């Protein structure tokens, strides 16, 4: 009995260093989101990522071949292939939940890389058609790289822009996630929460 408990403990101690598998951030992103309405529905969500200077410099050195401080159309296209398209394997770090259910990611549109104050900026949008009725609808957005290679800055409500819509009431908040952690102690990012209803 003694031997068994001692063995179990010793193995636990030995295994401990291998337990904390997780990826640490190499790339840092400040994130902004804009929501646009059309008539009585949510029509588009635009995302803008501003990268840390180190990753920015590396990508700019690779793709701003003309060294003009901006990307030509051909350079932007090469960048999209070399440093954006692979994100489809990471669902572009985005997950949308309507009424608690995860919805399919719409196709990514209007990808445009740019350079602002020496930093790399990616902008793209996702078309939606979420009807808004008199009953309140809750849209929750998670923006997170679960391999943690990329860390997104903590968001605040001012990072979310809501387009004007005369007939729709919208409240924006940043709330604790409702996605369940898979590991004890796992870092789970906050969610952007939009509550919308027809006036």
């Amino acid at each position, binding site marked *: 009995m003694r031997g068994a*408990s001692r063995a179990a403990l010793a193995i*636990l101690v030995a295994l401990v*260093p291998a337990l904390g598998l997780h990826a640490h951030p190499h790339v840092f992103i400040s994130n902004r989101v804009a929501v646009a309405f059309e008539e009585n529905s949510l029509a588009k969500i635009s995302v803008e990522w501003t990268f*840390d200077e180190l990753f920015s410099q590396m990508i700019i050195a690779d793709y701003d071949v003309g060294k003009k401080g901006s990307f030509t159309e051909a350079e932007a296209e090469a960048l999209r292939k070399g440093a954006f398209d692979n994100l489809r394997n990471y669902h572009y770090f985005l997950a949308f939940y309507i009424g608690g259910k995860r919805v399919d990611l719409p196709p990514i549109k209007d990808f445009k890389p740019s350079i602002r104050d020496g930093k790399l900026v990616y902008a793209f949008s996702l078309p939606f058609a979420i009807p808004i009725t008199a009953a309140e609808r809750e849209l929750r957005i998670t923006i997170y790289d679960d391999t943690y290679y990329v860390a997104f800055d903590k968001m605040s409500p001012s990072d979310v822009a809501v387009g004007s819509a005369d007939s729709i009431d919208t409240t924006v908040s940043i709330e604790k996630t409702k996605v369940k952690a898979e590991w004890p102690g796992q870092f789970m990012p906050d969610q952007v929460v939009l509550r919308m209803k027809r006036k």
Partner: protein
Amino acid sequence: MRNSLLSLSRRTLLALAVAAACAGFAGAESPNPFTSSGGPSRVAAPAMLGISGLAPFLHSLTDRLAELARQIREARTPGPMLALASASLLYGVFHALGPGHGKTIISTFFLAKEAKLRHSLIAGYLIALVHAVSALTIVLALFFLVRGVFSTGFESASRIVQTFSFGAIALIGAFMLVQRIRGREHSHGGRPGPGKAHDHEHEFESGTRKVTGRELFGVALASGVVPCPGASAIILVCLSLNVMLAGVVAVTLISLGMGLTVSVIGAAAILAKRGVLKASAASHGGVSSLARRIVEIAGAAVLFVFGLVFFIAQF
């Protein structure tokens, strides 16, 4: 019974203390989602709360490294260079708390061995040396010889080096596992008398248990050779700004910082092992060779399985 319960709780506490020290400190590098091709690594686990708290600090430190490289280009005074050196050291220390960078291999290696605290210091600095040389070689080769898109080339090169690294880790683990298990069989073999068997076992075991310089270098090579993407990016930035010296300074200090963190993790493993053996000795009235064997075999086994799993996951 009461006595064994007491010692059990003490050991549990100890195990928890080690868990607190090491949890979240180990793991493997994942590919860059932007510039690699393919999905996330099949073997990966999520970020832990403790590490994520460091993210804002690391973000500003990362920005600062690039900013300082630019300042060095503008004004060639010692000020920005010193600032770059200290920012790089900090970056190395905190960045290495993440996965990769040899923490798993170091801690399991020291569990499997009869190591002294200075061995963890030596290992940390050998890793720093290997890492600095490796990162500089890979970045310079990609920049001057290959001349393609750097970020894509770097991902491919890292993957190759990483596959080699995991393979080497699995081999070292396998070798040590065989050594530990054979050591046990040997002592079980001819057993003329209880006292003599003990001496005999000690004599045999101390030969393979002691840490040799060659082993330390092997461990450092296997774990330090994978270039850190952050360190490599700063070399690249310095190269493209034409301030190569700054790049060498930055990568050297980042590597030293990483080595320091790895040394501390290694020392924690050595102390944890001593603690466990001491606790088991206290409840037994003598160091139990069973407890020692269990810790050592478990250390070697984890090292082997870790290397093997990540090696296979590369394909």
